[in-house]
């Protein structure tokens, strides 16, 4: 676009949402980044003021505003705590698209999103190859967590402790499924999400085991694409829409009551962001999005709310597990009780709450790469709360949080294992 008038016009369309911020500043109390920096431009009020300033030509530096707007975890803490109900997340995602449209997408991101992510087969193949060679560059550091570190990759990844790509991704073991409803009378579509497919296939297997145990039919189609959030949060609407389309097509081929995912971020993207960001798509696609998004559920919420679980009493020697509430699960979808019920289904575990269980882990998708230091500082607080809970296991319904929390615990040399609630339930079956 690179046309200032077009930029102002598009920002002007956000005006109805921007104007609802009354500048009370209550978002300062909950923003994880503001908690670290104390800078007004890091909190939602500051970002909204900057976007409004840009729209009204009081601020003349779109690049400066873009830098501020993207210093954000998209965790939604501000929106969840906003007295006047400002839809801060919607605003920031739309603003990212508008600003990227004006400033252009970096060549690296073009290569990643447009060259690779939108082509699921190629993406799977490339990562499959990478998984064969990654051992050459990395050294295992923590056997409980299963993390590694890499001196070779330090220039790119910093001091991060990595969770490596799985030797066999879920789609290799289980390329597709289409089983009828069993005793539950229900059938679900299963969207594992990239991380549960490629890094934590154990989570995907656990979900399938639990669904089978409850007699739930499963439709797992081949050719699933990323949910689109990495592209959208970089402002790449073109790749985002392509990914949404691919998924609409593969899931249109099945019949199911619900679509479940074990990833909080995928669930909230497909349920809330797909409908919100659909205005550029065709009426048929918009209708398909509406129909699909109504069926989407977090897998913990599905098994508890739709299957009706009755947890047994915990065993005397039960292992203490603490729960991290992912932002995209609790703040965005209001799911926080169900993961605890799922954990209670395994009598060998008992839940021990940590302080501030719903504080963000600091991952924020690519934020952890672009703002590594801040991400690690926020993550360190989460790690301290996990450690202080005394639990031997930390559970969370989001593989992205699992990556970040594995990294933080491993860097601290902690022997606390990181699991998805469905893994713990599946262990007991």
């Amino acid at each position, binding site marked *: 676009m690179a046309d200032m008038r077009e930029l102002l016009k598009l920002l002007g369309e956000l*005006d*109805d949402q921007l*104007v*609802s911020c*009354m*500048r*009370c*500043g*209550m978002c*300062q*109390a909950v923003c994880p980044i503001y908690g670290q920096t*104390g*800078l*007004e*431009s890091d909190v939602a009020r*500051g970002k909204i*003021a*900057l976007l409004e*300033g840009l729209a009204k030509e*009081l*601020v*003349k*530096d779109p690049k*400066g*505003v873009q*830098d*501020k707007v993207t210093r954000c975890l998209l965790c939604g803490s501000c929106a969840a705590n906003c*007295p*006047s*109900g400002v839809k801060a997340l919607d605003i920031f995602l739309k603003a990212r698209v508008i600003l990227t449209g004006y400033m252009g997408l970096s060549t690296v991101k073009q290569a990643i999103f447009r060259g690779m992510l939108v082509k699921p087969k190629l993406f799977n193949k490339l990562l499959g190859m990478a998984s064969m060679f990654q051992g050459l560059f990395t050294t295992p550091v923590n056997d409980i967590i299963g993390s590694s570190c890499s001196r070779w990759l330090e220039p790119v990844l910093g001091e991060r402790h990595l969770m490596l790509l799985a030797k066999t991704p879920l789609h290799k073991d289980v390329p597709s499924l289409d089983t009828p409803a069993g005793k539950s009378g229900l059938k679900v579509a299963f969207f594992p999400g990239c991380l549960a497919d490629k890094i934590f296939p154990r989570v995907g297997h656990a979900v399938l085991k639990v669904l089978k145990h409850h007699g739930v039919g499963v439709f797992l189609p081949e050719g699933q694409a990323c949910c689109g959030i990495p592209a959208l949060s970089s402002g790449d609407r073109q790749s985002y829409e392509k990914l949404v389309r691919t998924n609409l097509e593969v899931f249109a081929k099945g019949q199911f009551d619900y679509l479940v995912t074990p990833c909080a971020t995928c669930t909230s993207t497909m349920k809330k962001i797909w409908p919100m960001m659909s205005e550029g798509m065709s009426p048929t696609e918009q209708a398909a999005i509406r129909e699909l998004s109504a069926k989407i559920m977090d897998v913990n919420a599905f098994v508890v709310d739709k299957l009706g679980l009755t947890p047994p009493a915990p065993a005397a020697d039960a292992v203490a597990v603490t729960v991290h509430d992912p932002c995209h699960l609790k703040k965005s979808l209001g799911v926080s009780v169900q993961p605890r019920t799922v954990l209670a289904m395994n009598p060998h575990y008992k839940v021990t709450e940590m302080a501030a269980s719903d504080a963000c882990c600091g991952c924020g998708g690519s934020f952890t790469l672009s703002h590594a230091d801040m991400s690690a500082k926020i993550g360190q607080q989460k790690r301290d709360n996990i450690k202080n809970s005394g639990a031997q296991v930390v559970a969370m319904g989001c593989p992205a949080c699992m990556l970040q929390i594995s990294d933080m615990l491993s860097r601290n040399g902690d022997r606390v294992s990181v699991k998805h609630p469905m893994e713990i339930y599946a262990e007991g079956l």
Partner: protein
Amino acid sequence: MNDALKREFEALVGKENVMESESDRFSYAYDAAVLDPVLPGLVVRPESREVLGKVVKLANDNGLPLTVRGSGTNLSGGTIPKQGGLVVLTNALNKILEINEADLYAVVEPGVITAKFAAEVAARGLFYPPDPGSQAVSTLGGNVAENAGGLRGLKYGVTKDYVMGVDFFDVDGEIVKSGSRTVKCVTGLNLAGLMVGSEGTLGVFEKIILKLTPPPLAAKAMMAVFDDVNKASETVAAIIAAKIVPATLEFMDNFTIRTVEDFAHAGLPVDAQALLLIEVDGHPGQVADEAEKVEAICKKLGAQRIQVAKDAAERNKVWEARRAALSALARVSPTTVLEDATVPRSKIPAMMHALGDIATKYKLTIGTFGHAGDGNLHPTILTDRRNKEEWKRVEDAIDDIFDVALSLGGTLSGEHGIGLAKSKYMEKETNRATVLFSRRLKKALDPKGILNPGKIIGE
């Protein structure tokens, strides 16, 4: 601002604590008042009190206007800077220096967050009562500079009642000491009193000594439902006349009740014309006794229904409804103008009546709730500042609200401050001599006029 001066500030506070890009500066151009943003020339964040003093001196040496900013939650424009001026952030000065349990006081830096302080004090078994609506993010320095109030004002007073001393920098960066750690202190002029509510126009706070008290042992909350605003207002007066001072005595009008109910589904009676939310606290015996009397008074004066909270959960429910009031109103329209003109509590019926007339006259939606017990109502105008014609009516309505409040023996602002928004009305409430006296005082203490110029007394 010239580069050489910027580099001098950098040398004082460190490069990482100087913000000079346009987008950084624009983030400090506004506060919570419905006023236009004003772009400062530079923003600095001192990390020690010593450096804060040097920043003040450097600004004065260069005649640079300086606005101190805590969390920027001000509702009257007190933290909107001067064009091209300096914004000094206090949020790196956030240490609680001392909590003295034997002598019931605390010493804090200005950037300590109010709610964090109150929680820390509570953890030691003590109580810091001032609870402004923004306490989750507001700073104690800002509370003192604005003399912030809150829900507990009726019984426990406001911020000024808890300030035992303020040490502050004069424009030359010298520390001026005022007050003490003792209950009694008559040494010198009451400079601490002068600092409270001075909105950053007379000095820059270095540290603050705050009074603490033992917490009440018990509390009881109730909600009284009225079919007539007058009956509710009369009940307020009757409770006080019965020599009972509730910790909180809050009011909601019908529009606010309906809006809260739409938003929070708290089970509020939507056909009620007014609600009183009342809490008495103190010794358990006294609480039981007063709660009974308050209930009897409400009944006698025509409350249709009284709901006494039986446990903590029910008590919470009563206050959730009140806490939701502003949020619920704010969602109705794009712009929310929260006024706080205050009248003697016996004049609340007259004030409510006048607010109704003003809403009709200017065809505006006004929801009213607030601290009925201390006469501090919050008429809240729901509007859209982008609608120029309507905005003019809003401004005229605000003028009328002030005129009515003053004619009833009230004041322009109970707790939000004068700042930029209300400085033009100062003379209406006081007189010419008062404004001139204040200006002479300001001129003597701040000859170059660098300290938050334009606030309270104009320029």
